[in-house]
């Protein structure tokens, strides 16, 4: 059962050179749009976030967030 955790690379367990896995839940109308707009302006930001688009932050279920952590997310960023 804890196989997936064992798969975590050694260097990820330490803080130096640690590259976190982050899951984002972005609202289609606000944060997702802001993220697009950041792209249009060619802003640069760290490439650690993988995004799941939802129509509204109200769609986010407690179990999505907990499941993300269970699946190895070091952080969950919800953006409305």
């Amino acid at each position, binding site marked *: 059962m804890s196989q997936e955790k064992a798969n975590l690379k050694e260097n990820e367990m330490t803080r130096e050179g640690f590259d976190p896995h982050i899951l984002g839940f972005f609202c289609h109308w606000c944060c997702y749009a802001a993220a697009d*707009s*950041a792209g249009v302006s*060619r802003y640069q*930001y760290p*490439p650690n976030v993988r995004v799941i*688009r939802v129509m509204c932050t*109200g*769609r986010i279920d407690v179990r999505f967030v907990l499941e993300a952590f269970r699946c*190895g997310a070091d952080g969950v960023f919800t953006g409305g």
Partner: protein
Amino acid sequence: MVEAGRSPNIEILSNARLEALEGKPGQFVARVHQEPRFIDEDKCTACGMCTMYCPRPVVDTYNERLEVTRAPHIDYAQAIPSSYYIDAKACLRVNYETCNLCAQTCTAKAIDFSQKPKEHALEVGAVVLAPGFGRVDSSVLERFGYGRYPDVVTSYEFERLTCASGPTEGHIVRPSDNKTPRKIAFLQCIGSRDETCGNGYCSTVCCMYAIKEASVAKEHEPDLDISLFFMDVRTQGKGFDEARQRAQEKYGLHVIRARVPRVEQVDGMLALTWTTDDGKSHSDLFDMVVLSVGLDSPEDAQSIAELADIKLNHYDFCKTTAGAPLATTREGIYVAGAFQGPKDIPESVTQASGVAAMASELLAESRNTCTISVTYPEEDKAIEAEEPRIGVFVCHCGVNIAGTVDVKAVRDYAGSLPGVVLYEDTLYSCSQDALKSIAEKIKENRLNRVVIAACSPRTHEPLFQETLRSIGLNPALIEMANIRDQCAWVHSQEPEAATEKSKDLVRMAVAKARLLEPLAQPTVDVTPNALVIGGGAAGMTAAISIADQGYRCVLVEKGRKLGGNLSRLAWTLDGQDASSVLDSLKKKVKDHPNIHVQLESQVESISGYVGNFTTTINSKGKTKVINHGVAVLATGAREYKPSGYLYGENNRVMTQLELEEKLKRGKAFLKNARNVVMIQCVGSRGEDLKHCSRLCCSQAIKNALMIKEHSPDTNIYIFFRDIRTYGFHEDLYREAREKGIVFLRYMPDRRPEVVRRGRGIAVKGFDRLMGEDIEIPASLVVLSTGIAPGDNVELAKVIKAPLTSDGFFLEAHAKLRPVEVAVDGFYLCGLAHGPKSLDESIAQAKAAAAKAVIPLAKGKVAVAPIVSQVDQKTCIGCGICESLCPFNAIRLVKVNKRRKAQTITASCKGCGICASHCPTLAISMGGFTDQEILAQIHAFSGGKCEDEA
């Protein structure tokens, strides 16, 4: 705005001007000249390479000349048309036949210097003039040091400075030294309320935007010290006065009521001197001065008037009347927005919908004769039901993606994912030929799920969905991975990380795609008639417009006759006889075959949803049932009845409407009137009604002038807080002062009092200029009592429509949907929405009629496919979803004697609050199901994590 670019029935002719207009209403021919863009709109992918390579700098007018761009550019990222264009005046290729660099760098081959100007002859039934407003002449600004002192800026420039996406990224800096200023002064009425520059009117919007800009500036730089110099603070819009009050308190803005005559520079600082209304003189130094520039008539107003053969008013705005605010002097030509008179966004949007109704009335018989409707082949349900066969298309977007992300590696990675049977890369997947090829490949390979790894679904999903529909697949069967806007562009310094991220995003998209289900695209038939509630000016206007547009409507009025507040009015603000406006409306209502009037009737209950409402009304004690597709709320409001001021105790004290009724009956009572005293803001702005009632200032001055006309020797005194004669009503204010009407400002903590003196009465007040108490014996005291909401609470409950804290109906969006109610199928106009003048009520009623007719004209209401669905087997009827739904789109029904939730598909907006709060996971969101999202989460983990939930 994006919708306008996408509608097949809106043809945008950019870089174009009207050259001639011939013909007659219903049959005009408009000649339009169009300059080339030199960039093919269909080929341009908005990558920006041309701007990057162009050697020719151009000042950026979009950023108020604060920035530099290049000859080929786009005004702003979200511009429509969404393609770049070449500024022909600056381009070296256009002017000197040299350079051509951009054409060489454009991989999409979109740049085309062979484009020639086009001449169009357009057959149109009607013309709408909405050219906007012009800018105040720079000579006016120069009087305030603009151009001479770098730290004197216009409000337009300041707007761009406060904008996060503007040239300074929202940092407020002084142009002279790029340092953050400490003290800023806003000077109001620059080019407004100023006869010396020919603009005697009030520009209406500057007070609001100045407060907004000052507030935003304070958000950016909390230490700023900001003073605003007003003549009067004119925040008369709905909810604006309260917002101003809050902003003033929250940000500590200094409001000074004075007009600053000039700006001088002293030791690098800007010196202002002013006199307040107590006669005292003040001066101070500022780091920066913002000129709140007014709205002028459009520069080309004269030529438009000539071309369209319409008349302008004395300020070169379009001439209209209070009874027909959207009609020009020529039939078939209508006007909306600032060209009709200075106005803010909600008013402009309202007028825009209003003119749409006017054109729709005129051209009712030719509705749907020129429009294009798109048809699609029937959906291939068999192939959709097969095991997922996924095709992944990874887009290069020229170098936009491929310049950073290893597209071929991502493509091959996609091939390794379960369910993927086809994986390809495309140069520009959104180009017409690529779309065609994608469609062919879907067919060839019998694909039933598609993943496009390219740009944002927000902008491009509709395009790919369209492709699916065109070959008989449900549009919901596509998923996009945003590897451009949210990956390649923002990680261009880290190509390896960007490639890894792209793979992850594609893996997540494929995982979701495997579970995608076709979504129904239901439509519901619309009962093709309307209900209008309220028989005042707004209700009657709305009913007539709906009827003229060809639909039947029932007009329900609770009183015994039609007319509402209009029947008490003597004159309109532009001096027309109000009863002639009323009579003409009443006659049209009575004679119209499409209108059925129900007097002494009230709505008891309404059920159903947009397209199909069933309403029960109580008509003189009898119950009647009406079926209708839409409803307009025009329930009006009432004149506020104050306590105090001896009102109701002494017959010399009356309200403005009571005065008008008296004046209507005869002027004899004015004979011995020596002094008439009017008191503004009795009730409004704090005492009993929190809001500003908007029109009392203009109404009081109108009545005062009327008294002066019939009894020139009568002295008239008006006690006021701010005179809010916005727009062209400012003319009334000026005329009043010229005719010797005395205006006395009072502060809310020193309100005038009405007192008994012997057999007569007097008004006690404070003269701020003289600095002393005064007492004016009054033959008449007229109170401007303001407008209180009607009894909206019951009706609001029946409809489930929200009310404002003041008790008026709340619109769906203050700026963009000013006549719609949050509940679909309900529209709003007149005083029920908030205080406003007759012309504004009429324009709004027309707007409500336009919005109401849209579903009727379509005959069907499309239901958005992303809706919730309740599995009634697992639903326990707890009602949590019903109470949390922001749109009343879930109701509880009895199924086999048990309570079960049910989505009202037509009302659902797809937020998913219900699904995330259902105790038994019984609710599924189309396109965003629990399974789909969980699959994305598992894919995020790299498949190392199995389903646990």
